[in-house]
């Protein structure tokens, strides 16, 4: 048998099965899903810390955000999907808006008729108005489980449809829609996680839904999807929500640990009413202030910052035992994430370092030049608020940062400057999101200024 084989003509490749493409013909195997997966891995410690501190109320927010973001992304990418998913939402939304509108119209007419003498029509409109108000409240109090299950079923259904269609297209050698590839890359999951990191524990589901819409649709898809968005989607959502629903975005829950260590001075600072605090059983029963907000208050009063900068306080800040967004509180967890990101070369270490460094320098200088400190010291600013989250995960976002290393450094310094200015002199206690968004807008300009010089570049003007 072997002999036969040797005598046969050697096997040669079949020409009709050869592929043609431009060089290079090999690849290192890196891919977008891999990058997204690694970033999610780097986020894991911070997510874990959030869930540890707030328990279920953090976990549900994370879940809502991820599910809604994936649903939004998928519906933007696939019209079939959009139809199945959006129809119920549209009907539901229309109902809500209609009832609300009737309520307002009722009120308006009502008001008009009060000044007049006739009372007959008022009763009717009044009742209508009241009815719609009740209906509205009911509509908005659908149990959360229902919403989650509904969304999951829709996603599953639509994805199945998409997969079947994709298989068919492939078999028929037609061009695939590409929607599936785009959904599979995991960028929507990452956006969802980042969005949740920027919300407080216990945020209601519909805020998450609006946030997902702002992030995925307004922040990303209207610009052409992944890679084309000038602004960081999660931050677009955060700022959008902040403007629209400020109260939900600045209601912070105390961590479970804070409830246990009830008698420290530190806690007195954050809860202005001791009796309510002492009767609180779970984190959802009570709200707290963030250290930065307290600092702002103290600064406005011209008071001393020393209670905020005790050793215990710093330890608490470092571990994340304070009020704030789900992802921003634990400096420790965020730093672990940073190590992962730098290890896998997903971010340049320069960005977080320059960002945080600039804040530290500006804060120190500001305190140095006044006759008394205008704000707590640099360490306080680094450990509290969203600075580390922003510097490690937001300012390093690949798509929305400049193309070169030098550009990224300029970008980071700009972010740092704006953040500290807003924190010290601005109206908000927190400035990271705004400063990153502002710098995002400047990226094209930074790119132009920091264009690289090719290898062997000679300055023609200098030589002449």
């Amino acid at each position, binding site marked *: 048998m072997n002999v036969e084989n040797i005598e046969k*003509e*050697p*096997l*040669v*490749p*079949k*020409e009709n*099965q*050869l*592929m*043609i*493409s*431009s*060089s*290079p*013909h*090999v*690849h*290192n195997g*890196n*891919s*977008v899903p*891999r*990058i997204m997966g690694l970033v999610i891995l780097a986020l894991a410690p911070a997510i874990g810390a959030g869930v540890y501190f707030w328990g279920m109320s953090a976990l549900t927010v994370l879940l809502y955000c991820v599910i809604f973001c994936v649903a939004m992304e998928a519906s933007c990418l696939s019209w079939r999907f959009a139809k199945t998913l959006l129809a119920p939402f549209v009907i539901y939304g229309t109902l809500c808006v209609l009832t609300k509108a009737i309520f307002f119209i009722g009120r308006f007419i009502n008001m008009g008729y009060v000044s007049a003498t006739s009372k007959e029509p008022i009763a009717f409109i009044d009742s209508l108005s009241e009815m719609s108000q009740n209906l509205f409240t009911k509509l908005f109090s659908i149990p959360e489980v229902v919403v989650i299950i509904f969304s999951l079923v829709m996603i599953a259904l639509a994805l199945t449809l998409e997969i079947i269609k994709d298989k068919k297209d492939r078999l028929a050698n037609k061009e695939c829609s*590409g929607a599936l*590839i*785009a959904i599979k*890359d995991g960028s929507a999951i990452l956006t969802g996680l980042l969005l949740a990191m920027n919300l407080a524990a216990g945020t209601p589901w519909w805020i998450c839904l609006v946030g997902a819409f702002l992030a995925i649709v307004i922040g990303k898809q209207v610009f*052409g*999807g*992944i*890679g*084309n968005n000038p602004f960081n989607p999660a931050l677009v959502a955060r700022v959008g929500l902040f403007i629209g629903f400020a109260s939900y975005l600045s209601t912070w829950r105390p961590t479970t640990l804070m409830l246990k260590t009830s008698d420290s001075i530190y806690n007195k600072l954050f809860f202005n009413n001791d009796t309510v605090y002492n009767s609180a059983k779970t984190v959802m029963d009570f709200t707290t202030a963030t250290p930065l907000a307290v600092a702002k208050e103290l600064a406005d009063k011209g008071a001393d910052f020393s209670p905020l900068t005790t050793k215990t306080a710093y330890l608490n800040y470092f571990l994340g035992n304070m009020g704030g967004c789900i992802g921003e509180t634990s400096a420790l967890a965020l730093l672990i994430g940073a190590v992962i990101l730098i290890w896998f070369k*997903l971010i*340049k270490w320069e960005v977080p370092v320059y960002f945080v460094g600039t804040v530290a320098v500006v804060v120190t200088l500001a305190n140095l030049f006044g006759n008394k400190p205008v704000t707590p010291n640099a360490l306080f600013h680094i450990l509290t608020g969203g600075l580390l989250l922003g510097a490690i995960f937001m300012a390093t976002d*690949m*798509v*929305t*940062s400049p*193309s*070169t*290393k030098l550009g*990224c450094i300029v970008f980071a310094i700009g972010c740092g400057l704006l953040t500290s200015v807003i924190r010290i002199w601005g109206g908000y206690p927190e400035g990271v999101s705004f400063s990153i968004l502002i710098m995002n807008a400047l990226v094209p300009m930074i*790119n132009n200024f920091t*264009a*690289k*010089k*090719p*290898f*062997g*570049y*000679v300055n023609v003007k200098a030589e002449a």
Partner: protein
Amino acid sequence: MSENQGKRKYFRGGVHPHDGKALSAKNSINEAPLFDKYQVVLQQNIGAPPKAIVKKGDVVLKGQMIAESTGFVCTPVHAPTSGVVSGIVEIPGAMGQSVKAIEIASDGEDKWGSSLKPMKDWEQRDDSEIKQRIHDAGIVGMGGAAFPTHVKLSPPENKNIDYLILNGAECEPYLTADHRLMIEDPERILKGALIIANSLNINKIAIGIEKNKPDAIKILKKHSADYGISIVPLRMMYPQGAEKQLIYSVTKRKVPAGGLPMDCGCVVQNVATAAAVYDAVVKGQPLIERVTTITGNSVVNPGNWRLKLGTTALDALKLASGVKNNPAKIIMGGPMMGFAQKSLMVTITKNSSGILLLDKEDTSIYESRQCINCKGCVDVCPMNLTPSVLSKAAVKENFDIAERFNVMDCMECGCCAYVCPSRRPMVQHLRLAKGKILAKRRAQQNK
């Protein structure tokens, strides 16, 4: 050396592709048997196409000129064996277009008939005589570009050349032809280098070799002492063998952007070219054969063969006992810069350093997507460009932006596409932009 102070030790960027050289690195160069017919591509050099001087039915001898050069940047072509010209045919070229080739039916005798006389006393000969001989023997850069060697050796008067660098880096994965040549024929390479240096009146000669070829470095070091040639081991990093990067690694000189090696006093030649120069001058033998690596995971017996120009890829593959399974791609050259082929009738030319068969698992099948601005390509570009910006500009047909971001300095090394997580066909985009910009410049000049 004060000249090198404060300079980076290595060039910036670069990648580490899987090198795959183990497949064929230990297999010594085999002589190929005589085939029935050869299809010698007419134009095997960059520049002007040569003119065929034989017609159907002519009897030719091995080494006889069959096409003469038509300009300065042009080289003649010679018959690889004796036989009868059976016509001028159209065959698929290595770069995808169809090319003219002179088909020679071998008479089986392989009778020698070159008009070039050996010049044993080359040291006494005039520079111009040597350069003329290099031209007459049809020698071009055998590393890939196929740039006529005599042109490189004739720099304009105002350029002061003081350094000859032989390129033995062979940084392309899978290829081992130069590697084997350096091990088996060090004398020819070194003497060829001397001849070239002599014709340029310089005495600084260096051979750059990547460190993954310790055996070649050892052998060349042993021999080179007598010739005053220094051997420079180079860091393993693709594209170490690219002209500008090689010059930087060896001399720490930077070729000015948009310039040529001669602008910093260097001339770079491939080691195979040096060996060919030696044959041409000392033995009077024109360039009619070269060492080619036939390799790939699906090849039954990967190895290195000395093939006559005009051998088809099909014949060459049969030498390597054919394939085990059907490959996904056949590439002339290496995997980073070579060209994918659609036909096995493509033939060996003066710059065919390898025939590479890639399986589906080895190669990258593009499903390209949006750039996510990961900056991977920016970090690896050895020319210090911003490939992501260039590729986006090219796709949007914003060629002015591409030009402003120096797309013309791109050498198409492929590092950017190698690392791109979005699998963008970067090199394709970059070539498009370069082509359009060149066309525009030409149109402006003609105005």
